[in-house]
């Protein structure tokens, strides 16, 4: 009984195969309307992760909000004038009405409590109940603002030109929707004021909205670019569309499966379509070979089957390597990373299935004359690309030692670059420099305390300890210590309130702007404060049994490293100053630090795992560890050089970059697989075929003789020229489609685009120069055991 061959079956029943493919695609498509997105980085870690449990606890204990939007209002002439103040009042009134805003805790001139002292009377009132009518009133307001340290750098900048309205959000509110509503409100304001909306929810939810746009715009554009480039290569629209359909079908299947299984789309999975489109380019090798074969056989069906026989092994193995590269992500801790890995691995396998069924089936529909025409151009002797590639390989074969030495120097330089790598992540920097999100953030961070918020929780061993003068003084000292860091804009704690009350009770005498001497005083001052101000003011900074205090640390940057600096500073202070209190970080800034770290190291772990798996696949594929090592070299080379360059240009090693490192492996190894497989195949075929090796034929050497240097060299040139063309076409196509992403408005997409483009071109180049050089140099060792 003959073994069932999918390719032959497809060629015999092309219509059935195409109909089946379309049907399955439609089935997957029915899942699309159920699509959900999730852009909250919180969900990168499961709800049961330590950091989330801890942050939830902190939020609950201190009645904090997870999300806060800051509306910056800037007037170059100073905001303390009737018009701007009236604007602030109007805007605040409107903001309070927005659904999803936690109105009771909005901080603005008209809502923030101010405690003042005059004529033995303590006055507790919102800072500004109505807009002052005259200069006297404005001067009074100015005095109140600047004599209360709680306000400076929070709702008034030192230069008096900037204020902010802080808008906490209810759980589950959409930051972008609220930010857009705020933008509409401020648009109605005329006058000199400029308005800036910033904060983590804005960045995050804007990113989510943009992500959707990118999926809808860039994936199709990338597809069109690929279609166009392919058309330029083959001059056949039908086949170009076939390749495109191949990618599209795989994308629909994978995304349909993802959505059907009920997973939301994260930033990572949103990139999957473009990745799959790129991986689909591997079928380029089938086309490449097909035209060469057709030229030789002139029989379409036979050419198809022969082509598939020739390329099936490398195509299958590259798919395996790619799928494995992604599948290792399934073993990572972070859920979106796992989902992404599974998604792309599934898509890769789907693609390969299509390569052996759908593509051959589609070939049968192409008219013979058309193929004839294209195939005519495909001759390695006359084709300029092939000639060029042959020459490129010549560098490696003629001066192998020099080539390798140059390579080693490059690697050393690259390693120096890698040593300079800075691990960091900054969500706001995911937006371009000129973007609204970025500008708003910069403006507010320059003028005020900072939009990124972290907490340091002081935990005592007994209740009421926070009320002791020693705890108060310790916290105060820590605050001053932290404020010395350039990234820290402002800190706030219960101590600031106690000092404020102390001073106000003593007729605003600055002498009393200190921590009171006894625990009774502190307790009574806090009670007094709680009797007058909003309950949340106190709840936010101290827990009910006075066992824990919360120090707010406003950071001027969203860099994950900023919170790292704060934590180190806290540890440093603790070492120098003894206390029975424990200090633990919390808050969004801390969460960002943790999840970045986790994603990053998950990816690094994945990368190492992928390195091993890919090596195993290579060794299995080549049935030789030696060949696997050689095949591995261009890949390692490429990766080292790219990361070296990143280190030199000072690009942070952030989440998107770490994700890429994993992917690059599975993809860049493809070229080596093709090259080595085809080279060895050719070498086998050449035994007893004098025509294979022109130099051998010329030299008149006896046929079937042992492999000579010349045979190897000629075979290498042939490999570079023929399958090499497929490699270059693949790389160019890949690069072209990813180049599109470099025009995206979000930097992670740009990074991905630039990274993949350079990686593809570089690894193609490395494969064609370095494999010949290495094989030439080590042929004795490599070919010794080979039974050719």
């Amino acid at each position, binding site marked *: 009984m003959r073994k069932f061959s999918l390719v032959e079956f497809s060629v015999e029943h092309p219509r059935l195969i195409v109909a089946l493919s379309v049907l399955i695609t439609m089935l997957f498509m029915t899942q699309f309307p159920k699509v959900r997105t999730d852009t909250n980085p919180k969900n990168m870690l499961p709800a049961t992760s330590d950091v989330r449990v801890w942050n939830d606890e902190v939020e609950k204990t201190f*009645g904090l909000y997870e999300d806060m939007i800051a509306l910056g209002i800037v007037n170059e002439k100073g905001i303390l004038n009737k018009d701007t103040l009236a604007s602030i009042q109007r805007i605040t009134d409107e903001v*309070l009405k927005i*659904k999803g805003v936690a109105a009771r805790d909005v901080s603005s001139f008209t809502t923030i409590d101010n405690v003042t002292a005059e004529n033995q009377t303590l006055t507790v009132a919102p800072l500004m109940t109505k807009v002052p009518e005259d200069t006297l009133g404005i001067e009074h307001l100015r005095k109140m603002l600047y004599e209360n340290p709680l306000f400076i750098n929070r709702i008034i900048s030192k230069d008096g030109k900037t204020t902010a309205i802080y808008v906490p959000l209810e759980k589950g509110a959409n930051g972008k929707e609220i930010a857009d509503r705020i933008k509409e409100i401020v648009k109605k304001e005329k006058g000199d004021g400029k308005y800036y909306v910033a904060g983590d929810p804005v960045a995050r939810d804007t990113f989510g909205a943009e992500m959707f746009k990118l999926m809808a715009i860039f994936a199709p554009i990338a597809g069109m670019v690929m279609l166009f480039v392919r058309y330029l290569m083959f001059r056949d629209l039908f086949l170009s569309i076939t390749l495109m359909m191949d990618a599209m079908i795989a994308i629909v299947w994978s995304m349909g499966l993802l959505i059907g299984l009920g997973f939301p789309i994260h930033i990572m999975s949103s990139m999957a379509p473009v990745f799959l489109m790129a991986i689909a380019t591997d079928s380029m090798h089938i086309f490449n070979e097909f035209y060469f074969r057709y030229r030789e056989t002139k029989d379409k069906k036979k050419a198809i089957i022969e082509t598939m026989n020739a390329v099936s092994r490398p195509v299958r193995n590259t798919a395996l390597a790619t799928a494995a590269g992604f599948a290792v992500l399934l073993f990572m801790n972070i859920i979106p990373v796992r989902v992404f890995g599974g998604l792309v691995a599934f898509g890769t396998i789907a693609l390969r299935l299509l390569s052996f069924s759908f593509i051959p089936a589609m070939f049968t529909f192409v008219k013979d004359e058309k193929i004839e025409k294209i195939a005519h151009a495909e001759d390695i002797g006359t084709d300029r690309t092939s000639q060029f590639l042959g020459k490129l390989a010549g560098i490696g074969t003629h001066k192998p030692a020099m080539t390798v030495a140059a390579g080693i120097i490059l690697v050393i330089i690259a390693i120096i670059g890698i040593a300079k790598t800075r691990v960091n992540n900054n969500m706001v920097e995911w937006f371009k420099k000129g973007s609204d999100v970025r500008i708003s953030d910069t403006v507010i961070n320059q003028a005020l305390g900072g939009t990124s918020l972290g907490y340091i929780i002081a935990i005592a061993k007994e209740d009421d300890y926070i009320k002791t003068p020693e705890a108060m003084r310790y916290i105060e000292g820590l605050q001053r210590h932290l404020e010395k860091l350039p990234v820290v804009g402002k800190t706030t704690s219960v101590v600031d309130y106690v000092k404020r009350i102390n001073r106000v009770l003593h007729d605003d005498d600055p002498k009393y702007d200190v921590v009171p001497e006894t625990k009774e005083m502190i307790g009574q001052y806090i009670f*007094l404060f709680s*009797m*007058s101000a909003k309950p949340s003011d106190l709840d936010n900074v101290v827990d*009910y049994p006075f066992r824990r205090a919360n120090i707010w640390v406003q950071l001027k940057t969203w860099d994950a490293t900023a919170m790292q600096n704060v934590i180190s500073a806290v540890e440093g202070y603790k070492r120098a100053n003894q206390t029975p209190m424990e200090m633990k970080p919390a808050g969004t800034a801390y969460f960002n630090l943790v999840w970045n770290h986790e994603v990053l190291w998950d990816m690094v772990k994945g990368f190492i795992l992928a390195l091993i798996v890919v090596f195993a696949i290579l060794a299995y594929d080549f049935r030789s560890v030696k060949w696997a090592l050689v095949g591995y070299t261009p890949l390692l080379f490429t990766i080292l050089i790219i990361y070296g360059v990143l280190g030199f240009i000072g690009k942070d090693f952030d989440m998107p970059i770490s994700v890429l490192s994993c992917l690059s492996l599975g993809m860049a190894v493809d070229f080596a697989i093709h090259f080595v497989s085809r080279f060895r195949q050719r070498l086998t075929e050449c035994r007893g075929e004098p025509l294979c090796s022109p130099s051998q034929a010329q030299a008149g050497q006896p046929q079937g003789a042992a492999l000579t240097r010349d045979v190897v060299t000629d075979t290498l040139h042939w490999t570079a020229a023929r399958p090499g063309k497929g490699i270059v076409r693949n790389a160019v196509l890949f690069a072209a489609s990813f180049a599109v992403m470099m025009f995206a408005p979000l930097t992670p997409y740009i990074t991905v685009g630039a990274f993949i483009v350079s990686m593809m071109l570089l690894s193609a180049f490395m494969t064609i120069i370095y494999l010949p050089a290495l094989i030439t140099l080590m042929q004795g060792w490599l070919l010794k055991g080979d039974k050719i």
Partner: protein
Amino acid sequence: MKKTLIIVFAIAVSAALCGISLAVTPDEVMKKSQAAFLYPGKDFKARVMMKLISKGGQERVREMTMLRKNYGESGGDQKYFIYFFQPADVKDMTFMVYKYPGRDADRWLFVPAISMVRRIAAKDKHSSFVGSDFTYEDVSGRSLAEDTHGIIKEEKTGGKDSYVVKSTPKAGDMDYSYKMSWIDKSTFLPLKEEYYDKRGELYKVFTAIEVKDIKGFPTITKRSMKNLQSGHLTEVSYSRADYGIGIDDSLFSERFLKQPPKKWTE
């Protein structure tokens, strides 16, 4: 037969009309409610236990003796004297309020740690009473003339017939846009109040949990205020409540703030 029908009908119609004309006006309901809720007796004393419960279930306790004396009619001036037992570190702290209808009250606080009396000026409408979910106004009431009242419906709540009154502040400076009160038809005590914010969403609920008759005055001895948005809850219970105990005017002075007589505080 026809005639009888007409007569019956006429009686029915006039009875219905009478029913409407006899029904109390919303302003009357609220006036009676104010008298029953905030002004019963000449004076009043109770040991008040207040529990402030956060969303996460953390508790803060305020324990105090509250003394009240009326000056003039229901809706007129009142004086309050409060002595704190708990939290422990504020023991001996005292607090005095002179309440006037239609304007902010005068308040004085004695801070024992520094032995100092300070006057406190705050907005009754917004300020929280000792950190609870009650505002000063929720505790001591607001002038009826500041709102427009309307009876929306009558229904049973907690098994008691009550008027449902909607009160809308005339000025826009309140935290809520309107309040719904369920007023018991027999005692005129509010059994429930719902506060709606500026977006028209319910955000605060007052509930009378326990009503007892003390010296002939129906008195709410257990009550709660829940903030639905912050999840914070305040529970208040009165013990040893009493009316007509003859509080001297002299109690409400700076001297006694500093040295509250045991007779009144215990």
